[in-house]
């Protein structure tokens, strides 16, 4: 891996964002809408239940913010790739001495930068608007963020592979991928509240451990350490699988000669 190439690819996105500030607005717009809706629902519930549940119900906001982190990470990776497709630049990249690993690393970094912006905006608004301080999660936040980001990257690579194989026809599918997982990773409710048959499925995905952990931390200030271990282990597995899928699809498109048709379409 060559750091010069990765930074050149990242530089391109920085130029892009500097040239079109609307892209930055988009980074904040939906998260803020989500936050306001969930924040108001939380206030409504708080006013109409007993105080103990009322303070606990803030986990809606925590879940929403952490979910957005994962979603943005996935989007960051997929969007970076789509920008190259939309701008017919893919061929220029593929005929340049850029390794797949360098290309993917650059999309990861862009994903991370996007998350940072979203996270700052959301933390700010939730603190001032709804007295939800994400930092009440204290240093637990770091492993939470990291794990969700890693899973977001895996999903991003899967989305990218789908688009690489099926072209822009798969684009909307690529956007929807994180939401296939939303019902089963216990973002807004506990795993034990889910139907029994779906619980084993839930434990197959790293975010479940994080969202469960988040609720524990909010309630008791601590959580099951094993959860972090499972989440990290599963993340390594999913990253490896997604990376393998991406490279496999890339080679397949080379074999079938789809890369060029697709890159110039």
């Amino acid at each position: 891996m060559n750091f010069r190439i990765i930074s050149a690819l990242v530089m391109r996105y920085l130029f892009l964002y500097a040239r079109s500030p609307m892209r930055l607005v988009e980074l904040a717009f939906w998260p803020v809408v989500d936050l306001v809706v969930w924040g108001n629902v939380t206030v409504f519930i708080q006013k109409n239940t007993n105080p103990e549940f009322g303070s606990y119900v803030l986990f809606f906001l925590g879940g929403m913010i952490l979910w957005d982190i994962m979603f943005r990470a996935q989007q960051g990776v997929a969007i970076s790739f789509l920008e190259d497709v939309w701008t017919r630049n893919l061929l220029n990249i593929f005929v340049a001495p850029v390794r797949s690993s360098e290309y993917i690393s650059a999309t990861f970094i862009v994903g991370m930068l996007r998350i940072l912006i979203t996270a700052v905006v959301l933390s700010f608004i939730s603190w001032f608007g709804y007295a939800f301080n994400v930092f009440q999660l204290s240093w637990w936040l770091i492993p939470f963020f990291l794990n969700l980001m890693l899973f977001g990257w895996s999903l991003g690579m899967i989305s990218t592979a789908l688009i690489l194989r099926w072209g822009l026809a798969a684009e909307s599918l690529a956007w929807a991928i994180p939401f296939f997982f939303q019902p089963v990773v216990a973002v807004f409710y506990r795993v034990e509240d889910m139907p029994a048959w779906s619980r084993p499925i839930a434990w197959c995905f790293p975010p479940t451990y994080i969202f469960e952990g988040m609720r524990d931390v909010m309630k008791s200030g601590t959580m099951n350490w094993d959860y972090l271990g499972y989440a990290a282990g599963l993340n390594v597995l999913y990253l490896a699988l997604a990376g393998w899928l991406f490279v496999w699809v890339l080679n397949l498109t080379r074999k079938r000669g789809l890369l060029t048709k697709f890159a110039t379409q």
Partner: protein
Amino acid sequence: MSDPTDTREVILEARELTREFDGVKALDRFSFKLHRGEVLGLLGANGAGKTTAMNCLLGLTLPTSGELNAFGMPLQANRIKILQRANFSSAYTALPGNLLVWQNLLVFAHIYGVPNPKKKIAELMELLEISHLNKSVTGQLSAGESTRVNLVKAFLNDPELLMLDEPTASLDPDIADKVRKVVRKVQRERNVAILYTSHNMRDIEEVCDRVIFLHKGKIVCEGTPSDIVAQSSSDNLEDVFIKIARDGELLDEPKKASAV
């Protein structure tokens, strides 16, 4: 086909390159050598296999069978090393339209690791007479301007091997003429090996040292443009082209020019 007394360094070599798409051969046992400092034109009707050949040579498409070497190394296993010393431009690709011209060029200069990139970009833009476009939005350039920006990108890393797929398509005669002259000039100064496709016979006669005619993926004839014209009963390259496109061969004369 190749002359054993030829001692020039071989930059690019294809042996029995075959590429099938759904059982149809877009390239059929295509073999050639490209030497240092040589400009080789690939000619043939639409669908003859020129772009397919280039894509295989760039590693974008894997051949069904056959061997590819560049700079004496097998292509697939050394793709990155080879691409560092090569470049490509086509009328059918573009640089990201939402960036400014200098931004796009700077990004590629960094990707290729060009020393002193700003100076290099300024020099090349001057050479192609597009210095004034430095701050233009890439997506708003005219076809001819965008072609020349693509060419700046293609020359950024001082490639030893350059593949140009219809670089003059959509250029007006004046600009096409300028582009041909610049390509020729840079090529001579730096001794670049160029693989060149075009449907413009004027291009080919002016730029190419040697040409290969393809028909349905097979080599029909090869040689210098003047040899080929001389050996056919045609008056010019354009007539040869039309004959080959219609009949699939040069009927009335020996099928191959012997000189390489």
